[in-house]
């Protein structure tokens, strides 16, 4: 059996809350196989974003391990190639147009050649924004911005995409479109997806649905 794309074991994370310590994650274990889509639901403050940050290597757990493809290297340089991230607030660079925002992921990985430009254009087209490739984020709607963010996340052909409530700032219809697009693009690229969401309907569209309760992940 092949190595899981993502493997988290016994993740614990606490934060100071005044004088007290608040234990947000209490030994979370998760494995995601190649091309698999997993959703994580939970109440606000349940630690979903904290878990995603640990899985992305953006934060260090108090204990436990995160392996990407069986290796514990979650450094920034590896993240650029291995992971794509999608956020609730899109986080596009306002000075760059849609195409340049998509290409930024590749620039950070190192070098933009003709093939990279063509891939960025193809991705922009695949999210339905071919005619808006040279528009600045300020000239795009919320749904369009999130589509650009999806294209950027897929730019480096990552093994895994971590999406943190990508529909949180979108209306229901646009949110549904974005999730359909995200699942479709991941499926076609055989990219694993971890989708953090409040929305039960969106969660139901993933292959596996998990719930984070009292700092522990449970299957649904």
């Amino acid at each position, binding site marked *: 059996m092949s190595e899981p794309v993502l493997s988290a074991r016994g993740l614990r994370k606490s934060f100071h809350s005044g004088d007290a310590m608040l234990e947000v994650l209490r030994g979370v274990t998760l494995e995601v196989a190649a091309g698999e889509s997993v959703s994580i639901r939970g109440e606000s403050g349940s630690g979903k974003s904290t878990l995603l940050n640990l899985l992305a290597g953006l*934060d260090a757990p108090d204990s436990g391990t995160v392996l990407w493809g069986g290796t514990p290297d979650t450094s*920034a340089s590896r993240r650029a190639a291995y992971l794509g991230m999608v956020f609730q607030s899109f986080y596009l660079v*306002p000075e760059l147009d849609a195409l340049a925002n998509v290409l930024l992921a590749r620039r950070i990985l190192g070098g933009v050649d003709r093939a990279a430009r063509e891939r960025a254009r193809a991705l922009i087209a695949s999210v339905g924004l071919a005619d808006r490739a040279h528009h600045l984020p300020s000239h795009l709607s919320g749904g369009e911005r999130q589509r650009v963010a999806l294209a950027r996340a897929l730019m480096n052909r990552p093994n895994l995409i971590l999406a943190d409530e990508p529909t949180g700032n979108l209306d229901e219809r646009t949110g549904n479109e974005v999730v359909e697009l995200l699942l479709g693009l991941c499926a076609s690229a055989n990219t694993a997806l971890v989708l953090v969401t409040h929305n039960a309907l969106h969660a139901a569209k993933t292959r596996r649905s998990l719930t984070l309760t009292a700092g522990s992940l449970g299957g649904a």
Partner: protein
Amino acid sequence: MPWYLHLALRQLFPTGRRFPFFTLISVLGVALGVTVLVVVMSIMGGFAYEIRHLIVDTEGEVQIVARGPVSDYASVVKRVESVPGVAAATPYARDAVMVKFGDKPAFPMLRGLDLSSVEKVTQLGRYVVVGSLDDLDDDSVILSDQIASSLGANVGDSIEVYSPLIINKLSADAVFLPRLVRVVGILHIGHQQLDSSTVYGTLRLAQDLYGLGTAVHGIDVRLTPGVNEDDAVARINQVLPESIRAFSWEDSFSDFLWVLNLERSMIFFLLLFIVIVAAFSVTSSLLISVVRKTREIGLLGALGARPVHVAMCFCAQGLFIGVLGTASGLAAGFFALSIRNNVVLWVARVTQRQEVLRRFYQFSELPSHTSGSTVALIIVLTIVISTLAGMIPAWRAARLKPVEALRSE
């Protein structure tokens, strides 16, 4: 192009948008500093350059002097002219005199010129505005215009000359008479100090006045173009006896040049503070940028950017502001220099102070000379200071943890 340079350029000059206000202010601050530095240093350099020009034009590049009078000057001139790199040499006699016209006295230096060789060494003829050097004989002088003006003497007038020798006779209770000479020309060099204190006559006249016989006080030397002055001085000294020494014009005026250089260095140092203050403005606007873009910096980390590259993105913005500010400042500075005389004359005309300007200024025009090394120093220092100005924001940006930056409001 590395992503951090690309992003730095895009943040300073966003696609499809006008020049951002913060960028404009930062660039203008640096440009202003560079403009002032270029203008002031060029004008100060112009004074030094003009002084060199005037000294070389009136006294040659090398001056030969002895402890006392040089008696066999003809053989010294011959030896000096045989030195490689020497174009010509001319003897002179020079001392202080009192000149009197009517009841108006003046106390200039009278310089006796060897008319057969003086124009091979100096460009004095160029500065004679009335008459010419050819009009000089042993009973005539050419006055600088300010001496002529203070005496009220014109060409054709006769003036009395009292030399130190005559004054010595006076102290010995001997009978003495001043030397009566005609004014045959007026000279205007354009340097207030020279124009207010020099009278020119023949070598014979000066020898008579100073009781030198056939001796002279010194010899002026012109070098062939491109010859290094210090090397030529060393070669000349090799053919001269120990009692006679050659000095380059820089050696002869070393104290004056040292003061001039000190002034230039002090002014440069003080004006550099304009660039330093501008650099604080760059730091301040980049710090604001770091605060405004905290979540974008978090995003860069999430996309896999290394902190050192995030830092370089902001440092590069300081560099680009420095480069642009320097280029704009140089352009503005050279433009200001090109119209400097029009501006000065306009101010003098409006304030009706043209005469005051001419009387108190060393030169009749505002001189300017921009040396390549000064411009290079301004460019390097400004760009380095601007880049350093980006270091504090860069350091702050690099220290931001992506997870905290993404969470920031």
